[in-house]
């Protein structure tokens, strides 16, 4: 069998150390059959399984996942006594496709999740406008809605790659402040037009109704471009942890700017210089100066399978699977390497490839059981390329703290263990 596979692999190889063209999965029927034989020999199923002999549960009012999936969880983290100032991370190593289930969407809060009564919540639009206006959830729901599938990434995501030594981490612990949902809401520009912006109004201040009353300043150009007030996430009302009953959503921008539990929009001439846009979410550079208002998330990709803290079960044909995204628009290409970046092959982009959404990529890989260093590298439609960690650090040091979009390396050891390394 191995002779045949080797000859197929030579034809289908796209890069060194076992990376194959996607046709490999279609052509290696022998391998699939072999695998099935292997399974049936291992554990012959009974003729009728136990669950097929008794009535199942009745329909559910609100769906639950299988009991067997109960260990697929976010990892909430916080430091007592400030229990509400924490984050929970999406378990990318256990997920597939491009949409993050709402219950597994990452969270980052500054003083907990408020319990907002939607009938009492109000949104005020004021400042440099001719007509200050108040909206409630019911009236906003009557406005023309738009729906878009788009990612949200905390700008502190992948910060662990700044560490001097590689951390023992997973796709979840290193890259879990990233998720993708279908967001439905009202374009903010419609509401601002109704309030009539004055000509000096070049920025807005967005304020949340959580107990930190979180605030960020947003340039009017983004409001005009694609800002929405999101009311629905993946078809249902927003989850409380994601801003119920309404949040600002700024596609492609650092997550903190998509202010949750939105209660106020103030049109201003200049940024308000809030705590979160000056002392936090600013980028400290090696010369001691810091950059304000770096909003857009860079072109980036991660391999989610196989990924850190997983174990591969012996040599054979696998599928490398991962996510790519860019705040600039669409992903145009993703390359994968299995030899630490010496040779690269193009991965298949699993459509749809949407602007400012997560794009799933896949690549067949015949693991020969030897050590491998797997990486992915993303390109976007503007021509931007994901940088190496070395290049990123040489450009901006290790105190930058935000917007880390470096190529990350998973090492596959001969025993199948997968771990985060620098290469």
């Amino acid at each position, binding site marked *: 069998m191995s002779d045949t596979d080797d000859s197929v692999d030579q034809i289908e190889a796209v890069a060194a150390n076992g990376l194959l063209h996607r046709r490999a999965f279609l052509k290696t029927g022998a391998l699939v059959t072999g695998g099935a034989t292997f399974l049936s020999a291992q554990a012959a199923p009974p003729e009728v399984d136990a669950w097929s002999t008794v009535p199942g549960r009745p329909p559910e009012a609100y769906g639950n996942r299988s009991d067997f999936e109960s260990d697929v969880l976010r990892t909430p983290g916080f*430091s007592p*006594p*400030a229990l509400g*100032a924490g984050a929970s991370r999406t378990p990318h190593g256990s997920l597939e496709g491009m949409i993050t289930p709402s219950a597994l969407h990452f969270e980052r809060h*500054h*003083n907990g999740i408020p319990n907002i009564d939607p009938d009492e919540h109000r949104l*005020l*639009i*004021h400042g440099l406008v001719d*007509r*200050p*206006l*108040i*909206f409630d959830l019911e*009236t*906003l729901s*009557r*406005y*023309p809605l738009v729906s878009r599938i788009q990612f949200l990434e905390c700008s502190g995501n992948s910060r662990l790659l700044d560490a001097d030594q590689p951390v023992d981490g997973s796709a979840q612990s290193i890259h879990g402040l990233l998720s993708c949902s279908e967001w439905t809401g009202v*374009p903010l*520009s*419609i*509401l601002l*037009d*109704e*309030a009539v912006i004055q000509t000096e109004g070049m920025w807005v*201040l967005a*304020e949340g109704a959580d*107990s*930190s*009353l*979180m*605030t960020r300043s947003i*340039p009017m150009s983004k409001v005009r471009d694609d800002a929405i007030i999101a009311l629905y996430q993946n078809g249902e009302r927003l989850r409380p942890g994601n801003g119920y009953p309404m949040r600002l959503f700024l596609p492609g921008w650092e997550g903190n700017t998509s202010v949750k539990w939105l*209660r*106020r929009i*103030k049109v*201003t001439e*200049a940024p*308000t*210089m*809030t*705590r979160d846009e*000056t*002392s936090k979410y*600013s980028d*400290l550079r*090696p*010369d*001691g*100066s*810091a*950059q*304000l*208002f*770096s*909003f*857009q998330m860079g072109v980036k990709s991660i391999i989610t399978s196989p990924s850190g803290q997983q174990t591969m079960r012996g040599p054979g044909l696998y599928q490398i699977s991962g996510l790519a995204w860019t705040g600039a628009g669409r992903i145009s290409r993703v390359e994968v390497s299995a030899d630490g970046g010496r040779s690269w092959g193009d991965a298949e982009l699993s459509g749809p490839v949407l602007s400012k959404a997560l794009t799933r990529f896949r690549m067949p890989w015949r693991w020969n059981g030897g050590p491998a260093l797997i990486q992915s590298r993303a390109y976007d439609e503007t021509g931007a390329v994901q940088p190496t960690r070395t290049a990123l650090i040489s450009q901006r*040091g290790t*105190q930058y703290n935000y917007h880390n979009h470096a190529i990350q390396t998973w090492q596959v050891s001969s025993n199948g263990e997968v771990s985060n390394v620098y290469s």
Partner: protein
Amino acid sequence: MFIHKVLMRKFLVLILLLCPFALAQESPGLGVPASPEEVAGWDISIGPEGENLPAGSGTVAQGASIYAVQCFACHGPNGEGATNDRLAGGHGSLETANARKTVGSYWPYATTVFDYVRRAMPFQQPGSLNDGEVYALTAYLLNINGIVDEATVLNAETLPTIEMPNRDGFIWSSEVR
């Protein structure tokens, strides 16, 4: 016939081009006018020039007393940091591999201290301090960073005049320049 087709196609293209803009302007107009009193009640944000600062005042000594009760548990003695952020010190550390960003070493505007403390602190009871207490705490935090002396009284006039040490340490990203 041929000309008609071309014209029709041009017309359709024009309609398609205009449509998104036409739709974007369409609004049910359901916003309820907000009175100046309503706006004043909601608008607590303070601009870097001191816009919207309220009446009241506070001293360094008053701030020290409030700090001991309200802030010490999370931020430690003299703003050294404990379970939460360090608030003082770190001067000269920004260029090193162990940067310590504090109110004194990093924050560009003193007005931001007032704005943030008033809206978000103390963590377990945000909004429980009155404006004079927030002025006092701001004065104390600036004093332990060596920015103002012990006799300082902060209010709507004096706070915006404070020059923070790292005021010129920031540049705007090319996205907004």
